[in-house]
């Protein structure tokens, strides 16, 4: 995309800025939309209407909330470690925002064409843990501390099954680039990795069950990484008030919130790229049929957003259906079930892809 814009504009600074601003705009817009969506989804699941007053079906509610948060007094407790306290929300927000740099929204809309995109995603999203620990420690509040301890343990543990599944996908596709993985799954949903990828033959059918298991494990462990129910114990509202961001207020709290929703879409995007064809259409492109090639990237963007939102919806659906696990049960799920299964999956996919 940078190259494209550079050719178009001829100024590398302006082109670079646009490339940087586009994903930021997307995450901010998505976060605003996501918070509204969560409210509406939860409301309709619970026999309520949710926000209805601000704009059509309350679509401006999040904007109004953001305005309110920006105007709020920025309170810092006397005993807080002020430097860390101020850095933490920025770090958490950066971690979730930076992931968007390598996510291909369509074949033409890609912040940065990094060859090691998947590796970068895993690395940069670990930054969030540092931010959370900082937030929990610096606030000098016992609930925050407990929340941060839980969060660190949880996110670090669940990174292992995530990494194992990602590793098996890397073995299968032979690349770390998210764009290339998306390109491989082109032309039909039958070529998506969840159905064994774009190869044809016996190995495809052998792969399908393990792909389903892999997608499921990846979904569960990313759910835990973004602290969503049933794995929301770091911010367990009824136990720890709000967990690691108990003491935050105003826009700093808002940044944690934006980061959470940004993360939700980011992990949904990763799942859809790895298993569900990324930006590829399940049925072929309308633009190709009528001979308007310029239409194809827009269609791809549409499919990408649809897939991402679908997984975001599933996350919300689970949140408003299930209770929360306890901290030891959470660890049991990870270490006793997800990691062994992810390992077995990794080995079997490895053997099949050699065959």
């Amino acid at each position, binding site marked *: 995309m940078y190259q494209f814009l550079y050719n178009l504009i001829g100024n590398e600074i302006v082109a670079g800025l646009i490339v940087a601003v586009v994903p930021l705009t997307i995450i901010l817009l998505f976060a605003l939309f996501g918070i509204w969506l969560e409210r509406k989804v939860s409301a309709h699941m*619970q*026999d309520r209407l949710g926000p209805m007053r601000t704009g059509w079906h309350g679509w401006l509610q999040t904007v109004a909330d953001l305005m309110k948060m920006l105007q709020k007094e920025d309170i810092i407790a006397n005993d807080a470690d002020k430097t860390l306290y101020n850095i933490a929300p920025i770090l958490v927000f950066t971690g979730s925002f930076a992931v968007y740099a390598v996510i291909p929204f369509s074949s033409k809309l890609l912040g940065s064409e990094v060859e090691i995109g998947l590796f970068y995603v895993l690395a940069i999203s670990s930054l969030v843990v540092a931010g959370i620990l900082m937030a929990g420690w610096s606030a000098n509040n016992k609930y925050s501390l*407990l929340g941060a301890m*839980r969060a660190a343990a949880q996110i670090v543990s669940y990174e292992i099954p995530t990494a194992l599944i990602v590793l098996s996908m890397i073995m299968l596709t032979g690349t770390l680039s998210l764009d290339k993985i998306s390109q491989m799954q082109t032309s039909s949903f039958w070529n998506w990795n969840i159905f064994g990828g774009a190869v044809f033959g016996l190995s495809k059918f052998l792969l399908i069950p393990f792909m389903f298991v892999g997608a499921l494990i990846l979904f569960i462990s990313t759910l835990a990484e973004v602290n969503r129910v049933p794995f929301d114990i770091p911010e367990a509202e*009824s136990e720890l*008030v709000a967990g690691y961001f108990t003491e935050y207020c105003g826009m700093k709290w808002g940044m944690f919130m934006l980061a959470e929703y940004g993360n939700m879409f980011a992990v949904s995007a990763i799942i859809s790229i790895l298993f569900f064809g990324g930006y590829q259409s399940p049925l072929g492109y309308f633009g190709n049929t009528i001979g308007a090639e310029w239409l194809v990237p827009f269609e791809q963007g549409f499919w990408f957003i649809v897939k991402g939102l679908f997984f975001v919806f599933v996350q919300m659906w689970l949140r408003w*259906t299930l209770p929360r696990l306890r*901290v030891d049960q959470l660890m049991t799920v990870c270490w006793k079930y997800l990691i062994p299964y992810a390992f077995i999956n990794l080995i079997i996919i490895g053997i099949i892809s050699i065959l």
Partner: protein
Amino acid sequence: MANKMALKTETMVLNMGPQHPSTHGVLRLELEIEGELILSVKPHIGYLHRCFEKHAEAMTYPQVVPYTDRLDYLAAMGNNFGYAVAVERLLGIQVPERVEYIRVIMAELQRIASHLVAIATNGADIGALTPFLYLFRDREYILSLFEMTCGARMLYNYMWIGGLSHDIHPDFVRKTKEFLKHFRPTVVELNNLLTFNKIFIERTANVGILPIDTAINFGASGPVLRGSGLAFDVRKEDPYSIYDRFDYEIPTGKGLVGTVGDCWDRYYVRVLEMEQSVRIIEQAIDNIPEGDVQSAIPKRIKPPKGTVYTRVENPRGELGYFIISDGNLNPFRVKVRAPSFVNLELMGELCKGHLVADVIAILGSLDIVLGEIDR
């Protein structure tokens, strides 16, 4: 040498409440924790103390009734009921049949409403927020029945000494039947959504086990005692009003998914009790006799000298009123045996060796109301 090199550790004191999302009001729990492990729990109460008992001594007998509403504010009908029965026994009067029937129907509707809140908040504490709203929707139906009857939705001041404040609305019987018809599928839905949810069972089964002898020693009552397996219910053991005329069962904890007396059993006893309450209402609703809703009692209620202790089965357990009369217009002494107060004492016993998250589950399963603990 090894001792000197060892890392110095200390336990942490965590103050849970009085402002905390799941202490159900203004309870303060002093937790001594080591990491997430609970070493001891100490409940601190008194933030909602209103001097009810002392205040009652300065008022005439009928004036006390509105104050009993505020004891267990989720089951105000039951509180009225207990006080009215106590003073009526002191006076030695019999109330009309119609009053007895309406009282029983109201008390059982109140039991359902109160258990709905107990179940809903227990679920919400564990993280299931959707059942919470579903159950509050059903509770709303009961509250509108009460509103139709006496105008109030929470603090009714409905059961007066010797009768009721208002007769029932002409639509009351029809609407109650409508509610009962709608309520049975709701329980099924609740069981599907929450009761037999795997995660909910993981969180509550084998947590906070209360053995039957401990329960008896602490004087626990209500669903907390029955959850431990003893079928003790004041409505059966010491029948008051007309409870001996109805056919219903006393559900007890069976350890269906864990050990007898765990949080899940206490929770499930409440679910089953709601069904039994529905049975009682169904038997009573068609048999309400015609008549007056206020028996002939003197304007100035002046019971003879003496004492009375009356207990009724409130949703939270055995609610007792001990009243001493010295023959004046005011009671000499009113003492309330509040079930939540007794049940809360179990916290320290139940929480030992559990995790912070379990404290919330255990507290939710005890289902306390601070209004009657602090009085």
